[in-house]
């Protein structure tokens, strides 16, 4: 019962919408019952006198989606005849805002009468040209010509004359033409968009990344050191906690935590700033015609460079553990790029929604924080496997969280430790990334034009 009450309450605001729907239905299904239609129109005007905008959309919907021009013409005729008797200025506004395809002969006569009544003689003369020849047309024409002689022309008349001129031009031009062009997004080209942008704008991206790095530590005394201080402090904290809480630690614990935190902070940076990449660049997006991915790529690039520089902080630890780098070192940049690609994929999706609902960035920041604890950042995947997790959950976990695998990969680049989880999980994580990117890239190219309007 409560639900129905709520529904009724909500429906109050949309009576006008419902009436419009009913009218459209009537116009399409039973166009001959004109008395019924005009009755509903009178009702509609009583509930919402400013109805023209919604009706314009309804008419366009009829023309372009349902291809029912006859119904559109009828709807237009009824709207103008309702408005003409109530508010002639609004009626004329409606006429000149509406799609000219919907204007039939009867409506044109109505428009003429309206102009004539309002003493827009020049405009009404022009409209007469559009009306098909009938016996009264020539009479009216001579009548108006006499009227104009003694009168000074009003500015409003001149404006309407111009509008009528454009209207008639458009009417003669579009009749018989097909539906308007609608931008179609091609699936495969949408996937290639982002890499192509990255390549074409590589010089500019380089410049933007350099700017970000320059600005980041401007006016700070320690400058670059801050990039290292944070992971260092966190590593010490977690080591301390582990020392108190647990007895099992792996051999390279400080090294593993350090790598985990540095990469995760880079990933979080991409997600947090990437989600806001469209929103925070409003000024540029509204002035320069650029591929909109460029800001996201800029953020990702900055993160990659920052992580690569910060990772140098582990060199003392490598010396301490007497680790000599092997060919496996190449796994680090590879996994870093995979992590960045994952961040970009998520952000392609979130950044477009962020422009409409600003909640998304809050949601993402919560997710990044929770993800920090659920991903082996300050512990290792090995500890997780050896923990008290049932194996089927572990499988699901590894499928859902590819970052866990990429992090482990990055660690093994330095520590040379290998974990026995089977190679197939790496391929699954790669598939996860590809599917996510496919969805996000397609979503982005479908919605970017709309998203920019919300800025």
């Amino acid at each position, binding site marked *: 019962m409560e639900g129905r009450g709520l*529904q009724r309450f909500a429906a109050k*605001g949309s009576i006008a919408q419902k009436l419009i729907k009913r009218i459209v239905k009537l116009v399409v299904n039973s166009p001959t019952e004109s008395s019924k239609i005009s009755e509903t129109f009178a009702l509609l005007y009583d509930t919402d006198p400013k109805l023209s*905008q919604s009706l314009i959309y309804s008419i366009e919907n009829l023309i372009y989606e349902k291809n029912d021009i006859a119904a559109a013409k009828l709807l237009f005729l009824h709207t103008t005849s309702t408005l003409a008797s109530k508010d002639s200025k609004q009626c004329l506004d409606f006429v000149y805002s509406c799609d000219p395809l919907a204007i039939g002969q009867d409506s044109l006569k109505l428009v003429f009468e309206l102009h004539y009544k309002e003493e827009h003689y020049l405009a009404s003369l022009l409209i007469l040209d559009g009306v098909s020849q009938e016996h009264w047309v020539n009479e009216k024409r001579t009548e108006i010509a006499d009227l104009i002689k003694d009168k000074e022309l009003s500015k409003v008349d001149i*404006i309407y004359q*111009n509008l009528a001129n454009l209207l008639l031009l*458009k009417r003669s031009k579009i009749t018989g033409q097909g539906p308007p062009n609608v931008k179609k997004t091609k699936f495969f080209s949408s996937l290639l968009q982002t890499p192509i942008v990255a390549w074409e704008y590589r010089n500019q991206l380089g410049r933007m990344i350099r700017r970000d790095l320059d600005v980041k530590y401007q006016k700070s005394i320690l400058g670059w050191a801050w990039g290292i201080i944070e992971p260092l402090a966190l590593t010490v904290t977690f080591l301390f906690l582990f020392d108190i809480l647990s007895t099992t630690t792996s051999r390279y614990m400080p090294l593993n935590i350090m790598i985990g935190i540095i990469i995760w902070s880079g990933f979080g940076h991409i997600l947090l700033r990437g989600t806001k990449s469209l929103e925070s660049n409003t000024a540029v997006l509204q002035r*320069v*015609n650029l591929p909109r991915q460029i800001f996201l790529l800029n953020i990702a690039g900055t993160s990659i460079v920052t992580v690569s520089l910060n990772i140098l902080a582990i060199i003392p630890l490598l010396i301490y553990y007497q680790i000599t780098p092997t060919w496996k070192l190449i796994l680090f940049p590879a996994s870093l790029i995979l992590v960045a690609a994952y961040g970009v994929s998520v952000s392609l999706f979130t950044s477009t929604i962020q422009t409409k609902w600003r909640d998304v960035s809050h949601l993402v920041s919560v997710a990044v924080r929770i993800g920090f604890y659920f991903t082996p950042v300050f512990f290792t995947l090995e500890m997780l496997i050896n923990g008290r997790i049932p194996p089927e959950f572990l499988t699901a976990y590894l499928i859902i969280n590819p970052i866990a695998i990429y992090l482990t990969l990055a660690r093994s680049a330095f520590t040379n430790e290998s974990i026995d989880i089977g190679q197939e999980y790496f391929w699954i994580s790669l598939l996860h990334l590809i599917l996510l990117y496919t969805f996000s890239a397609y979503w982005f190219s479908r919605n970017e034009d709309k998203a*920019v309007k919300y800025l």
Partner: protein
Amino acid sequence: MRAGKFPIVLDDVVLDFPFHNAGKTTIQKQFLSLFKGNNKKWFRALSGIDLKIKKGSVVGIIGDNGAGKSTLLRVIGGIYKPDRGKITVEGKVILLASLGLGFSNDLPGRDNIYLTGGLIGMNEDEIAHKEQDIIDFSGLKEFIDAPLRTYSSGMRARLGFSIACHSKPEILLLDEVFSVGDYEFRRKSKQKILQMVEGETTVVVVSHNIQTLEEICDRIIYIENGKILMSTSKKYAIELYKRT
């Protein structure tokens, strides 16, 4: 058609915007809108604009606030894609709005020349080659090495205009650029625009400064409610705009 002669052709361009309704985002209203079904609210920013702009001409756009002038410029500049209708713009387009281009506040003006120049499609060598010209024209002198946040709005506009002009655009779109500049800057930029037009650059200007428009424009378009009210005669359009 005669594409070479008309670099900008708009054919029945329609653009809708979502309503920025502040109350809309409360949870209660969002929830209720689920029941209301059709909760899309749009307003029409441009309704059926037909426009052809000749190569090498200066076109001014006048109209009240919110009439759709800036939106029209942005559609020509490719920032908004029209919801309906067709638009063809041929050549390199640069849109210059009052507060400069892609400026970074913390960097000095000189770095911003490179940054902005890159954003609008100049390469490194090109910018390096023209750097001195840009600085000279902007009249910023030693301030060019000061961070951009210390600039006045007029100084920003001068730098922006200077970069835009030196990037050799084929179509230059100016949105209220002259309103912040001083007399000297306005005189200089007017001269520059006329000089560019001789080199076959097409210029579209939005301004409330009718005097400036009258001096530099070949043609003036009067827009209201997203519709072109008058686009034929320059004098008439201005007269009409003043009277209504």
